[in-house]
């Protein structure tokens, strides 16, 4: 039954938004993780979304969301001069992640709204399918 395709699509949306929420949680949790070198410092992680290509090529088919991967932000980490810090390097600098907590909070709200949207779509489709199954009774 092709109707179940709606469930796949809404499910792919929920999966993608769930990953996004996870990454936001990881970014916010690590916002204050200090490091003593540029290479080791935590970098903000962001998901890359794309429409499912196979279904997009056939223009009459609906396409779900595909997560192509997770990228680390290229923004420079914050250097802070704190010679008394136990993690300070030989020049007295510590390195803080390039996580922008305000941005992440906005990201989180957007992701949770989109997730709720998918849940609503799923519920509506489920109700319609149940009614269809009960047809003629």
């Amino acid at each position, binding site marked *: 039954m*092709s*109707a179940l*395709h*709606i469930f796949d*699509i*809404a499910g*792919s*949306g929920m999966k*993608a*938004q769930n990953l*996004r929420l996870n990454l936001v949680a990881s970014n916010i949790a690590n916002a204050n993780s200090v490091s003593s070198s540029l290479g080791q410092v935590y970098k903000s992680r962001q998901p890359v*979304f*794309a*429409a499912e290509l196979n279904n997009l090529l056939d*223009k*009459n088919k*609906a*396409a*779900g*969301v595909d997560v192509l991967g997770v990228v680390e932000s290229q923004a420079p980490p914050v250097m802070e001069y704190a010679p008394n810090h136990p993690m300070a390097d030989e020049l007295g600098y510590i390195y803080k992640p390039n996580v922008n907590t305000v941005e992440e909070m906005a990201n989180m709200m*957007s*992701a949770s*709204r*989109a997730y709720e*949207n*998918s849940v*609503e*779509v799923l519920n*509506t*489709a489920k109700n*319609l399918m149940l*009614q*269809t199954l009960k*047809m*003629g009774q």
Partner: protein
Amino acid sequence: MAINFERALGIHPNALILREKRGELLAANLANADTPDYKARDLDFKSVLAQKMASQSGLKTSHQGHLASPTTLLGADVKYRNPNQASLDGNTVEEHIEQAKYAENAVQYQASLRFIEGKFSGLMTALRGE
């Protein structure tokens, strides 16, 4: 004389299939609300209906009140939506509009279901002959 179900149910089963297809497209739009460069899509009934009526394929329509034959509706075109306010990342999904359309489509789906149920109960009444 055998009962012809196709004739008894009329256009409604096809309408149901179309509503389902449209539901899928709208669900995909909502799921891709945050996908860069995704373009919102929808079914365009009106133009397909007009086009089919003009081409006179299938049943003939000689009056503006006539409907096109049911099977021709299934070739409905998928078109891209014109956004009121496109976002910078090339995404043209406007969630509030898609939500409204999805709700509208769900109600229309239910209406088609009710019509079919009505047809069936009519058939049952005829069969029982009470």
